[in-house]
């Protein structure tokens, strides 16, 4: 059964974070984070390395105690309860499979700890193998004989076996090659839709977050700087950090020229009705030919991206810009200068 994710914010909150902080010496790894996670949501916490996202998820899983703040599972305070007493399960970055055990023994671990009889454990383990799309005969295979992708699936099945209310993922796909990662991202999203469980996923890749999540929280230096649906984050990043995190975008700075007019300092062009200090323009919004705001740019690099072509450009004032054009754009030889333009509708404004 597929559940409907469109009205997810109407659902009851399963996990709420109230002012969570964690300090290591003088370093504030997690800095006063408050967040409510509705039941059944696929929430992704994105941030560069060192942003505190791993520490945050370890606090949520009970592997680390916060320095201050509270954590509630529904209405129960669970801040101090240890990992083994929480109805949650984590898929670790290293996967942390039990190397000296078989696939079946790995999956059954949580049930064994609960004292489930061997026959029932086995039946459930076989069901879970099916859920993560591994053949049944993997049951008695040592985990050391599994490939990277198979190990991911075993780790997933093992986490599901404890029948957790919330699943945490600490960058489990970061060490996997591109194609397999894409496949597993889609499978994970489907698994979320099929099981209806709450997923909290940690990654440094906004691209990965965009593919899978209902909602994204972006972390920077221990704080959450923006939360929103993938579409909201994509169209309206709250600051330059979030914007640049999305990959290659053009960010222009506004300044007042001598006549008091607002101009983009990188290209020297004036703009009417600015709604922020910075403007983000996506590469595909910077088009070849004159338009609403036009500027002369010189081609410095030309890269084929399959159906599109990416060109690196430099303005007369020396700023670098990027444009992506459909087709092969044969006229854009390196060293040639052309008019490029964008419209104010395509600008995402930011204050900082």
């Amino acid at each position, binding site marked *: 059964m597929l559940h409907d994710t469109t009205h997810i914010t109407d659902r009851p909150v399963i996990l709420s974070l109230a002012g969570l902080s964690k300090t290591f010496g003088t370093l504030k790894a997690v800095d006063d984070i408050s967040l409510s996670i509705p039941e059944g949501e696929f929430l992704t916490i994105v941030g560069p390395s060192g942003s505190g996202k791993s520490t945050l998820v370890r606090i949520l899983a009970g592997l680390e105690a916060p320095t201050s703040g509270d954590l509630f599972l529904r209405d129960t305070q669970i801040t101090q309860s240890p990992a*083994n007493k929480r109805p949650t*399960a984590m898929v670790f970055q290293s996967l*942390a499979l039990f190397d000296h055990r078989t696939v079946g023994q790995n999956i059954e671990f949580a049930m064994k*700890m609960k004292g489930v009889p061997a026959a029932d454990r086995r039946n459930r383990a076989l069901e879970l193998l099916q859920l993560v799309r591994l053949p049944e005969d993997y049951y008695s295979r040592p985990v050391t004989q599994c490939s990277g992708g198979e190990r991911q699936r075993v780790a997933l099945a093992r986490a599901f076996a404890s029948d957790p209310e919330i699943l945490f993922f600490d960058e489990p796909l970061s060490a996997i090659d591109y194609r397999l990662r894409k496949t597993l991202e889609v499978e994970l999203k489907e698994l979320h839709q099929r099981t209806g469980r709450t997923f909290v996923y940690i990654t440094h890749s906004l691209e990965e977050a965009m593919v899978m999540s209902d909602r994204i929280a972006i972390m920077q230096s221990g704080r959450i700087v923006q939360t929103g649906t993938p579409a909201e984050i994509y169209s309206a990043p709250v600051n330059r950090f979030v914007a640049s995190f999305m990959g290659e975008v053009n960010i222009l700075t506004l300044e007042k020229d001598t006549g008091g007019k607002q101009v983009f300092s990188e290209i020297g062009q004036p703009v009417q009705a600015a709604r922020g200090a910075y403007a983000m323009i996506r590469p595909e919004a910077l088009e070849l030919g004159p338009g609403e705001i036009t500027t002369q740019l010189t081609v410095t690099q030309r890269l084929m991206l399959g159906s599109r072509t990416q060109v690196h450009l430099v303005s007369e004032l020396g700023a670098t810009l990027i444009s992506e054009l459909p087709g092969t754009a044969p006229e854009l030889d390196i060293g040639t200068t052309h008019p490029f333009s964008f419209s104010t509708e395509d600008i995402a404004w930011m204050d900082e």
Partner: protein
Amino acid sequence: MTRGPHTSALQALWIVLILGFLYIPIVSVVLASMANTRYMRFPHKVWSLDAYRDAIASFTTWQIHSISFWIALFVVILAVVLGTLGAVAFARYDWRGRGVFQRLLVLPIFFPQPVLGLALLLSLNAVGLAPSWKTAIFAHLVWIVPIVTLVISIRFFGYDPAQEEAARDLGANRWQVIREVTLPALWPGIFSGALFAFLLSWSNLPLSIYTSGPDTPLPVWLFSRTATNYSPLVPSVAVIGTLISALLVLSLALILLAAKRVRARRP
């Protein structure tokens, strides 16, 4: 590289030479045990098993073996316990002073054993302990625990500590984490450590000679009887001792194999 018939013939010869080099001394001891000469020499004219009859009938034979066995048994148990705890400190956790600990721990291994034995005897005298097989256990431990610690530590390199967190996350309490994750991961190291401890203690001469007092373990007896008062009893006791330790190691290996089979059959 191609391998002609000559290469493989040379290879075979090389292997035979190495094995011969290793086994000729042992074979010569077996042969010497079947002589009835007053000196250890070869070839000898009279062949007999008298020495074995004497050795088996003699109370001393059983006494020296049992002393060596009890020393080795206690050394194995204590060295494995201390070595496992030491390995946890050595390799599992990072703490202030770990580097110093790692260096200090391996130092006794490099200390010449006869000097270490003498030093231990002096220390025992200083604290007023009479040397006996019990003090020999302590002396062996000083030298063997560092070795066992190193052997077990090797298991921790290449061990993912997140496994312990995963077990905890999946509902295991502290004791269950140790029983289900840490110990099974360490088990091959503990097994080799125990084996090392047994063999090193069983055959140790320089530490025992100073610290076992009136109790005579097998190597000490063999050494003193080879130096003075030699008879074919000496090589025959050596052969019996070798057979006993080989049997112990073999039966341990068989028990482990059987245990592995049983575990594999269990779902």
